[in-house]
């Protein structure tokens, strides 16, 4: 009985310690962020690895999500004679929710796992400790540019996801379903607010970008330096950051849209 209790306590303390460690870790990285202004090349490299290489999957996913949204919603809305509202519904669901969230989930799978594996492997092959040996802080040289790259790339990816999704919805709505193209855009403009909807979506994606990259680099940095440890760190990155994104999304939505929804 006491043993089980002790195990439970040990498990909880271990978890708590990890959470604390991750916060201390991110604090030290954030303090090192301003130094990157002197070396923008490092960030550009990371934006390429994190952002540009995620582009194909984000664009294809966005296009199809937008097209499917238009197709599905049309079938229901046409029953109420509300097919004119297809534009705003597609735009709002993409800009507010699906853009940031689906992009963040894909981002966690595509870029987050790669980051964790890369850093975990650097640790396993003792590249990080040899850097420290040469008096180069790996947090500033390796982690900080990746965090900056993630925070910068994520909102741009989410914006592209939403934009191409809305265009895909437009193609399906006007080409396939026969919705008036002027109504699609004008109803959208009448119902989508620049600050309430578009800006809040951008804020969401910045937060998601930060959280996903943070989890990825921390899991990599904290991995047990064996091939198994790296594998587990990669899995944990995808699982934890997906859960974090979904949970945070609810909190952010409640904060942003709760009072007028």
């Amino acid at each position, binding site marked *: 009985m006491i043993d089980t209790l002790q195990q439970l306590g040990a498990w909880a303390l271990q978890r708590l310690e990890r959470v604390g460690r991750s916060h201390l870790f991110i604090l030290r990285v954030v303090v090192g962020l301003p130094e990157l202004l002197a070396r923008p*090349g490092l960030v*550009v*490299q990371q*934006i*390429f690895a994190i*952002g*540009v290489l995620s*582009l194909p999957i984000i664009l294809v996913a966005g296009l199809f999500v937008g097209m499917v949204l238009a197709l599905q919603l049309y079938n229901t809305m046409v029953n*109420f*004679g*509300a097919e004119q509202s297809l534009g705003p519904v597609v*735009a709002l669901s993409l*800009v507010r929710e699906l853009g940031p969230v689906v992009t963040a989930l894909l981002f966690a799978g595509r870029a987050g796992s790669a980051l964790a594996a890369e850093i975990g492997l650097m640790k396993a092959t003792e590249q990080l400790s040899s850097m420290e040996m040469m008096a180069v802080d790996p947090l500033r040289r390796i982690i900080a540019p990746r965090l900056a790259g993630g925070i910068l*790339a994520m*909102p*741009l*990816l989410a*914006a*592209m996801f*939403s*934009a*191409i999704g*809305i265009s895909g919805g437009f193609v399906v709505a006007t080409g396939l379903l026969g919705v008036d193209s002027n109504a699609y*855009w004008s109803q*959208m*403009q*009448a119902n*989508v*607010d*620049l600050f309430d*909807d*578009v800006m809040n979506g*951008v804020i969401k994606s910045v937060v998601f970008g930060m959280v996903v990259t943070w989890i990825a680099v921390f899991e990599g940095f904290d991995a047990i330096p064996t091939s198994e440890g790296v594998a587990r760190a990669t899995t944990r990155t995808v699982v934890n950051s997906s859960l974090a994104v979904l949970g945070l999304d609810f909190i952010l939505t409640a904060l942003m849209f709760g009072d007028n929804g």
Partner: protein
Amino acid sequence: MRRTKTLEIWVGLFVAMGFAALLMLAMRVSNITSYIDNEGYEISAAFENIGGLTVRAPVRVAGVRIGRVSDIRFDEDTFQAIVTMHIEARYDRLPLDTSASILTDGLLGENYVGLEPGGEEEYLKDGDRIEITQSALVLEKLIGQFLFSRSQGSDK
């Protein structure tokens, strides 16, 4: 060196596309035009009941959108709702005796302010008040009136 160059080109393209997407979301999808368009003038009208009218609802004449509702207040002296409307600058020839009513777009659509131009020679200016107004139709009241007139009719 050559590799960094192609890499930088790709990143430049990526950033440009990202901003283009943001720009499209702002210009094409959202209502940025109503924020940019600060030219124009404000007129107001007092209503007994505004129903479900909200700020940013359209203001229409003959079905054409000419402005938006910029503010809704409650006047404690007259117990009326004061609706302020922002009209685009190019529509500056609304007669003084224009009347305003709160209408609904279709059966389930949003409320909007419909303006009905009168025949005066003088035009509405910034800060003017529309005198002739008609309140929103509140469905419950209509049903109540209908039931009331029905029951009166059956008494006879």
